[in-house]
Every structure is written in structure tokens, then in C-alpha cells.
């Protein structure tokens, strides 16, 4: 896959090599090899329990704290293995923003939610922070709705707004990669539409990896798509081919709901 597409090395943002992941003795991710190009949106689809969320979490070492797990293989971001001992995990996560299924703002004000990441990275310049917060809220298409209520609690927002706040928070530290774990799972169609459009516009700045249950939404935003089944990567291809002429029968069955 990686080699056939004729991709120039420099275009690759994330490369996953021979990745295996174990919960205890259970081999959850089996020898995953793929790459994500810079400034592209890649969606990962697959049934529940196929390992797609776990895979996403290996990309920013979110599984480090889960007990009794083991990982082999490499995840290279900009050519460097993020599992090297020398890697500073805090810095790594600054570079990799993450958005989760359920909106999970901090119990703080809207402003502080976005400013939080900047503050823990030691930025003290208030003007800079205010500017950055405004910019991120604008990027997340939320600013106009909250510009007069920036110091109200984040929980006063609707679900869709909270999710966009989480997106603003994730991009505040100026990451180059954005990981999204079913970002629209709990949102109404309107909010979902806004977030899908956001994801498409984000590829100008970031490399975006989205895990999704929803095949239609995954198709809508994707440049590339991958299908996971029982911990294996069955197929990975550009979205046009993936959703019109999948090469593997199992992919075809899944995306046509014949499972």
C-alpha cells in the first residue's frame, strides 16, 4: 500500500510500521502498516471493537497509561518514532490535538478552556493568549456564537457548541496533527454538518485522522480511508476508490451494510 501509491517521502506526515498492540495476551492490533499524508483527512472505519479507537490512541501515546498493555512496532511522525525513550510526551501531545466522542470541556469558562493548553505550555503573554483564543474559536466556527459570553461556563453551551469548543481547545496549541474519535457521534445533523465542514477546511493546516462509525460521514470528509476488522487493517486507499470500488470483499460488505 504505502509503496504502490508512489508517494514522495516528504508528503508523509505519519507512518505506522508493523504496529502490534496487546491487551494482556490478546493481540488487538495486528501488524498495522499505513501512512497518512500531510494536509489530508483520513477516516478509519470498522465495526465496534475492531481496534480503530485503540489505533487512533497509539498515534499520540494515549494508551501509555492503560494497564497491562504492550506495543511493538513504530509510529513515525515527521520521520521520528514517537515511542522512542527520548520523546517528550507533553510536547508530542502539543503537536497532536485530540477530540473525543463526547464533548468533554473542562469545568471552566469558555475562554479558559481554549487558553488552558497555552497556559500549561508556559505561555503568559495575555494579549497573545486572547488573540489565539479568538482565532481558534473562529477556526472552530464558534466565535460568533460565544463572543459575548466568553467568560460563562463551558457547560452552558449546547452539545454541538461544546464539541466545537473542544475542537478549538485541541487546535489552540497549534498542533500539526488532529485526531478525532467519532467527533459527531452525539450531535444533531446541523452540528454534524458544521463539524464535517470544519474537518474539510482543517486540512489546510493539519493532518487529520478521524475514526467514525458512520460510513456516510466518513466518506464525506475523507481523502483517504481505512477499514479495520478484528484488529487488522483490511484496506487503505484514497476515498474515491475506497467508496466506489473497494478491493476487498469484506470492505465492500461493511460499507454496503451487508455484514
Amino acid at each position, binding site marked *: 500500500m504505502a509503496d504502490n501509491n508512489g508517494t514522495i517521502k516528504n508528503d508523509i506526515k505519519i507512518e505506522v510500521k508493523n504496529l502490534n498492540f496487546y491487551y494482556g495476551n490478546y493481540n488487538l492490533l495486528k501488524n498495522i502498516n499505513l501512512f497518512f499524508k500531510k494536509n489530508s483527512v483520513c477516516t478509519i472505519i470498522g465495526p465496534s471493537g475492531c481496534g480503530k479507537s485503540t489505533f487512533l490512541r497509539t498515534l499520540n501515546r494515549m494508551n501509555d497509561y492503560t494497564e497491562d498493555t504492550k506495543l511493538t512496532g513504530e509510529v513515525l511522525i515527521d520521520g521520528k518514532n514517537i515511542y522512542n525513550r527520548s520523546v517528550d510526551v507533553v510536547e508530542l501531545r502539543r503537536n497532536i490535538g485530540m477530540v473525543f466522542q463526547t464533548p468533554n470541556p473542562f469545568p471552566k469558562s469558555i475562554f479558559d478552556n481554549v487558553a488552558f493548553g497555552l497556559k500549561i505550555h508556559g505561555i503568559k503573554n495575555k494579549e497573545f493568549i486572547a488573540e489565539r483564543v479568538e482565532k481558534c474559536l473562529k477556526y472552530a466556527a464558534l466565535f460568533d456564537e460565544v463572543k459575548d459570553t466568553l467568560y460563562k461556563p463551558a457547560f452552558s453551551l449546547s452539545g454541538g457548541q461544546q464539541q466545537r469548543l473542544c475542537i478549538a481547545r485541541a487546535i489552540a496549541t497549534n498542533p500539526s496533527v488532529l485526531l478525532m474519535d467519532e467527533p459527531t457521534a452525539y450531535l444533531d445533523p446541523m452540528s454534524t454538518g458544521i463539524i464535517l465542514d470544519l474537518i474539510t477546511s482543517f486540512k489546510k493546516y493539519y493532518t487529520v485522522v478521524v475514526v467514525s462509525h458512520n460510513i456516510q460521514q466518513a466518506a464525506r470528509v475523507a481523502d483517504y480511508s481505512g477499514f479495520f476488522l478484528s484488529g487488522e487493517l483490511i484496506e487503505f486507499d484514497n476515498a474515491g476508490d475506497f467508496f*466506489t470500488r473497494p478491493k476487498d470483499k469484506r470492505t465492500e460488505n461493511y460499507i454496503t451494510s451487508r455484514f
Partner: protein
Amino acid sequence: MNILDYELSKLRKSIVEMGDLVHLQLTNATKFLLYKDASVAKSTMEKDVDVNSKEVSINENCIRLLALYQPEAADLMFITTSMKIITDLERMGDLCAAVCQLGLSLGEDLSFIAENKNMYSYFEEADKRANEMLKMVIKMYSDGVKDNIALKDIIIKDENIIDDLSHKIVIDIINYSSADNSKLENNITYIFIARKYERFADHAQKVMELLLYMELGKDVRNLPEF
């Protein structure tokens, strides 16, 4: 503009380009018929490949749009209608190439043209009308069917006129042949060529019908005025 709107505007543009290409093909085919410049015929026949490959690439793109964006309502109608329109445009391109192919078999003798100025003026007229029809259906497609609904009647009228012209050409050829049947094969070829113009106009009218169906949800072909 959301991503699908952007994709649809790109699709619209590519079909307008395909229409322009077919327009050029017809113009050149007729030019060849009137002036017998074989190089024009050859280049027109070669360019038919471009029309064909445009159909393939637009079709592929439409399938991609359907698969990735699951369009609904007007967007769905627009894409599926686009897929049908390009089939007709491709056929129209084929007809232009066929005019050239048949024309080449007539040889380079210009004397027949001088003797049959009247019949040749019918070809010129059919070419003009057919190109106008093509322009009108592309305008309906790109600028909105409802805003250009008035073009419908002009298109139908033009189609009838081209039918008449084609018939007149046949009559002329019959008269000519009965006087001098030494070039019967050539004369029959002219009838075939006239038939290509008629078919071209049929396809243009069909595109218009598809557009009305897209907009109104009615198959206008079954209405009495057709």
C-alpha cells in the same frame, strides 16, 4: 460554500466545457462539409477522443460525488441528470465525427457544391440551428432551468425546423438523382449526413427534456405538446 457546493460548481463547469467542445466539433464538421478541407475532417475526428474521455471522466466524478457525499434532493437530481446529459453530448460528438467520416468518402470535388448551392444552404442552416440548440440547453443547464424555461419552446421549434431541412435535403437529392444517377453512392451519402444533423438535434432536445425532468419531476416527453 460547503464542499459539495464547490464540487457541484466544478461539475457544472466541466459539462459546460464539454458542451463547448461539441459545439466546436459541429462547427468544424460543417466547415469541412462546405469547404472540403480534409485536414479539418481529420482533426475533428481525432478530437472526438477528447469528447469521449470527457464523458468518462465526468461520469467517474459523478459516481465519486454520489459515493462520498450522498447528495439529496436537488443535488441528487443535478448529479444524476448530469450523468445522463453527458451520454447525449458524447453521442452528439460522435455524430460530428460521423459527418466528417462520411464527408471524406465524397471526395474533394467541389463542383457538386456549386451545382447544389440550395441543398448546401440547408446544411448551413441545420448547422446554425443545431449549434443554437446546443447553446440553449447548456445555458439551461448552467444558468438554471426555471430562469431559462422560455428556451424550451425555441428548442422544440428548432428541432422541427432541422427535421424539415433534413427532409428537404432528401427531396433535393432524390430530384438530383432522378436527373443524373451517375453518382448515386455520393448522393445517398448526403442523405446519411443530413440524418446526422437530425439526430444531433434530437439529442439536444433530449437534453432539454432531461433538464425539465430534473427541475419539475415530470417526464415531458409524454405530454401532448411533444
